[in-house]
């Protein structure tokens, strides 16, 4: 049976088992599975998927659910957490909540489970108002996730609450199934004038293939500040499709940093929608991959309101046979006068066999806007290499230092110091050097 058929066949059984908080959810799931049935998995024939093929990974016989409740020892996964700072933690193992590894709260804010939010009456109001409200209903993979959405992180920050510590959302795969597909679903609601920092990570602990099709909806109310970090440093057999949808109200600031250092195929669909004036959106990313790894950043910023800003800055370093895609779309509607939209995408190819497909798309319908985009593809600057070597720094270290410098605009804006150090260490590790100081 093909994966699509297997998924469709599983849906009935899945729906029978769960008790939703309202019938509306049943309708949402039903229309979602219908959309997935109609469209199926995206193929390279679609413009948005021209450079990323899922064909090879879809040949795996993925289980749609993990059969067993699996556990992992904290000692084995400690390194994937932030350890020097206290954090709220929502942790899942093979798609199921791990209370042992988690540290949730209902004290002044909700950091808990999607499964609770979807089934308990006290959350009904929020689910009615937010669940699946900004996600793209036409997108087949988002629909697939919606149909099976059951577990993930539910975060709700009330008005004017400054969250005292970062929230970590971690998904571990144990490899208990020969191949596993998961559908994590996160809902983040950040109230008026509230402030939160969130780190999300997906990690396989075993080389059995994994396909994670994740959907995250983030709602930033007026004057809210949200800093969201995605750390993607998974092993060679893990695949991730990350579909993130962010709705911003007036004067809110949302930044999403995506660090893509590993995995087999990683596709980041990052979508920002503006619903008020004076909004600031930041989309930044660093990609450092090699071998046959593939990372695709497909971004969309929908400027629909006047006086808003968006800043995109993506840095990519590709080695080996790695392939990268940057598909950055900025849409400025007619009403969105005085928009400032910036997009920067710089790529370094270290090998003749590495490929980058960079495609900025600007569609501007307003006449009083500032939009700019810059895209560069190149090798390391030879005169800079000579300068560093002249100071006694060997070729390998000089290369690493320049690559670090190349990515520093993005690492510097990480606001959690421990995360910034962690990213720097991963970068140094990727580049195979010890610089003798903490980069």
């Amino acid at each position, binding site marked *: 049976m093909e994966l699509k058929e297997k998924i469709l066949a599983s849906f009935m059984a899945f729906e029978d088992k769960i008790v939703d908080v309202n019938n509306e959810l049943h309708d949402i799931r039903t229309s979602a599975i219908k959309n997935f049935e109609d469209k199926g998995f995206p193929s390279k024939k679609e413009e948005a998927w021209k450079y990323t093929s899922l064909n090879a990974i879809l040949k795996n016989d993925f289980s749609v659910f993990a059969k067993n409740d699996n556990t992992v020892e904290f000692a084995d996964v400690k390194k994937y957490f932030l350890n020097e700072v206290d954090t709220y933690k929502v942790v899942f193992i093979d798609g199921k909540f791990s209370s042992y590894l988690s540290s949730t709260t209902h004290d002044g804010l909700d950091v808990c489970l999607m499964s609770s939010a979807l089934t308990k009456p006290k959350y009904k109001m929020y689910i009615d108002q937010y669940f699946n409200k900004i996600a793209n209903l036409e997108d087949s993979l988002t629909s697939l996730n919606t149909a099976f959405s059951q577990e993930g992180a539910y975060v709700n920050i009330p008005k004017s609450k400054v969250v005292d510590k970062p929230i970590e959302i971690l998904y571990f795969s144990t490899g208990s199934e020969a191949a596993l597909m998961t559908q994590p679903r996160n809902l983040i609601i950040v109230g008026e004038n509230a402030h939160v920092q969130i780190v999300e990570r997906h990690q396989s602990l075993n080389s059995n293939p994994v396909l994670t099709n994740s959907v995250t909806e983030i709602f930033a109310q007026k004057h809210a500040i949200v800093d969201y970090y995605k750390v993607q440093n998974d092993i060679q057999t893990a695949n991730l499709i990350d579909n993130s949808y962010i709705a911003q109200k007036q004067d809110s600031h949302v930044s999403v940093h995506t660090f893509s250092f590993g995995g087999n195929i990683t596709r980041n669909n990052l979508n920002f929608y503006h619903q008020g004036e004076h909004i600031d959106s930041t989309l930044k990313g660093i990609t450092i991959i090699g071998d046959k790894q593939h990372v695709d950043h497909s971004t969309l910023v929908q400027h629909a309101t006047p006086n808003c800003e968006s800043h995109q800055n993506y840095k990519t370093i590709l080695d080996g046979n790695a392939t990268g895609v940057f598909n950055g779309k900025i849409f400025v509607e007619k009403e969105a006068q005085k928009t400032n939209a910036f997009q920067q995408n710089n790529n370094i190819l270290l090998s003749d066999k590495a490929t980058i497909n960079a495609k900025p798309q600007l569609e501007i319908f307003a006449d009083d806007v500032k939009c700019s985009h810059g895209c560069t593809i190149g090798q390391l*600057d*030879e*005169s*800079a290499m*000579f*300068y*560093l*070597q*002249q*100071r*006694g*720094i*060997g*070729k390998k*270290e*000089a290369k690493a*230092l*320049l690559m*670090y*410098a190349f*990515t*520093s*605009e993005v*690492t*510097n804006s990480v606001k959690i110091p421990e995360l910034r150090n962690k990213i720097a260490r991963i970068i140094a590790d990727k580049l195979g050097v010890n*610089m*003798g*100081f903490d*980069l």
Partner: protein
Amino acid sequence: MLQIKNLHASVEDKEILKGINLEVKAGEVHAIMGPNGAGKSTLSSIIAGNENYNVTAGEILLEGENISELAPEERAHKGVFLSFQYPVEIPGVSVTNFMKTAINESRKARGQEDMPANEMLKLIREKSELLEIDRKFLSRSLNEGFSGGEKKRNEIFQMAMLEPKLAILDEADSGLDIDALRIVANGVNKLKNKNNAVLVITHYQRLLDYIIPDFVHVLMDGKIVKSGDASLALELEEKGYDWIKNEGK
């Protein structure tokens, strides 16, 4: 210290150096002057090991050892320092961290342990005072957003930190106002001793009022066409380079 014998070099099949002979002894300061395009910067780059140039004939000896085939970092480890005309900006790496890396890489190459942190701090303090560099400056990203003068002063600070045997200053005074020029020159003069040597590459004589050369060489069209003492620089300043060109005819 430095011996250059019949050095020929080209870039993309264009011959730039056409047989340079030069000897610089320990304790000496030599100046190489010449018009634009004479090959001055090429010569300094080649001594430092820039791989973009092809050395087609001749050799470069440092303390009697042929260094012509060595990589730039190996020459640096042996004590060659080049102050760049256009220092490169390295965002995200502070001056201090950069110096730590550079010093420890050289020490590693010489089989020494990393410099202890307190010793490093002491050295940084001492040398930054010598170049009248504000401590805050040292935590800024290397050369990023530095003014022309700050970049040059930072180059000499690095030279002071690395204590090279042979320092080549390529247009070290360009972009410097008179105060900065005095600081840079003062730094170089204090670092000079009987065991090291300085090669000053300059278009103008101005810097040589402050760093007094023992010898002045005129480089034109890839060759040293005239050598003399410090007075030659003054003569060049007065008469321009055409005078020598005409003299040769």
